[in-house]
């Protein structure tokens, strides 16, 4: 298996890009990634596009060919990868496999989501497609609602208060305030979070990742390509692992853990030869505050029912035990669904190369976790600084 390196990346600011289309966003991120990697898009052997809802929200599928055309490289191997909200993590996984297999030496991997062309009820309808359409979406459940079921169950099972879980939002906003491409770069108080409108009880508006547009892209290459191009890569992909779980909550024995996170993390830690304590910085998929807490547990940083304590006790701050979501996380950096997993890897790349907006002191190993549905798919990607 070939070693896989991240040469560089680029992202768009996340937000309501009224004047930019799906392709505009992707092209912008891809061109930035190429520029930051000192490479020409013409050198790409393949393009991987992560996206969840272009069909539903844009009436556009066949993103591989579309983006290849708009990047000026028609003819390249190109394909869309979809795994609901984990599309970004999953597309990175597929691009990684392509280079690791030795089939391609240099690929562009990106994620894009254009959500704000649709109104909220249509976005809500698109997002619930992450679960079983026939037996979950049929009930009228929203995606927020499914997470609310987990949230309430978690609070009742472990006797945890909402104010302790909602802190995750305050944490995210604190760091987003300093992130130039974050959708909501400002701080919020816990009171503000807890007094925001209910979306799906007990989940409140300020506990939910927002709806936004954005794209992120990375250039991956093999050792051979780097050598032949005279490039000294700074960051290596130490592991990329993907696992699934039942698509719906009804089939789960434990509602408070995402088994796919546990499985993917185990595989990734093993492949990378690391343990949770070796992770210097990470980005977790906190589409809702409760998920942030659960991820801290499932990734091995806290016992079940105690993840919230890490947040409350400052253990996920920039200069503490496990710096988490220094980008602002899904809540405040934003969550352009199919792009998010790629943003996360880009953010870990920034941390490992010392270029992050909220830079940790010294980072050797970083982790990015991407979640699709209510944990139906989880991708754990681990990057390591090349020594």
């Amino acid at each position, binding site marked *: 298996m070939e070693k896989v390196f991240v040469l560089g990346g680029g992202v768009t600011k996340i937000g309501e890009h009224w004047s930019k289309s799906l392709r505009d966003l992707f092209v912008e991120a891809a061109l930035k990634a190429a520029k930051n990697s000192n490479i020409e898009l013409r050198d790409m052997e393949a393009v991987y596009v992560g996206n969840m809802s272009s069909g539903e929200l844009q009436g556009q599928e066949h993103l591989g060919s579309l983006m290849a055309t708009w990047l000026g490289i028609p003819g390249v191997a190109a394909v869309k990868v979809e795994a609901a909200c984990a599309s970004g993590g999953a597309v990175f996984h597929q691009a990684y496999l392509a280079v690791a297999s030795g089939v391609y030496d240099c690929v562009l991997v990106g994620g894009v989501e254009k959500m704000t062309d649709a109104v909220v009820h249509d976005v809500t309808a698109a997002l619930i497609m992450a679960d079983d359409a*026939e037996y979950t979406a049929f009930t*009228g459940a929203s995606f927020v609602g499914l997470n609310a*079921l987990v949230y309430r169950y978690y609070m009742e099972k472990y006797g945890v208060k909402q104010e302790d879980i909602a802190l995750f939002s305050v944490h995210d906003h604190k760091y987003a305030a300093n992130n130039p491409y974050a959708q909501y770069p400002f701080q919020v108080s816990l009171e503000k979070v807890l007094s925001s409108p209910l979306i799906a009880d007990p989940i409140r508006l300020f506990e939910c990742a927002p709806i936004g547009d954005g794209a992120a892209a990375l250039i991956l290459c093999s050792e051979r390509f780097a050598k032949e191009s005279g490039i000294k890569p700074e960051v290596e992909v130490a592991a990329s692992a993907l696992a699934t779980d039942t698509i719906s909550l009804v089939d789960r024995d434990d509602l408070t853990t995402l088994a796919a996170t546990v499985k993917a993390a185990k595989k990734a830690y093993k492949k990378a030869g690391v343990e949770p304590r070796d992770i210097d910085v990470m980005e977790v998929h906190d589409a809702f505050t409760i998920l942030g807490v659960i991820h801290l547990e499932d990734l091995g940083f806290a016992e079940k029912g105690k993840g919230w304590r890490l947040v409350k006790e400052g253990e996920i701050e920039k200069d503490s035990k496990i710096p988490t979501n220094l980008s602002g996380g899904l809540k405040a950096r934003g969550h352009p669904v199919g792009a998010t997993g790629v943003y996360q890897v880009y953010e870990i790349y920034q941390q490992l190369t010392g270029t992050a907006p909220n830079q940790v002191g010294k980072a050797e190993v970083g982790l990015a976790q991407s979640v699709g549905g209510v944990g139906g798919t989880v991708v754990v990607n681990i990057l390591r600084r090349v020594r």
Partner: protein
Amino acid sequence: MGISAPSVPRVWRERIIKYRLLGSKCADCGKISYPPRKACPRCGSTNLVEISLPKRGKVLSYTVIRTPPRGYLKYSPYIIALIELENGARILAQLTDVDPDEVKSGMVVEAVFRRYREQGEDGIIEYGIKFRPPIT
């Protein structure tokens, strides 16, 4: 636009499962699933038998949908609950005839046949099972 493309055959195909709550039981690990499966989601066994599910259960968790998907605006806000039926099978369904502040985790509920959605003003009506506090 909506939850899924309006389709008549799709609703017709599912009617018996949704009207009568059919499920399956794994002969190997004992897991009972709704809807019926060909393979057990817990152990992967293909040794499954179709069964009729009990019409009573208890609420494991619930939420109130205040920002509904397109197609459900008429009913919003409504309650969605994860219900454990008397034989252990779990089902996601709406609670009806009950106010959010009357719902508690653990409360007993019974199945009732109700409307779920309509395919527009002139399209077909989709029915299914919801749950409510028992009449008696």
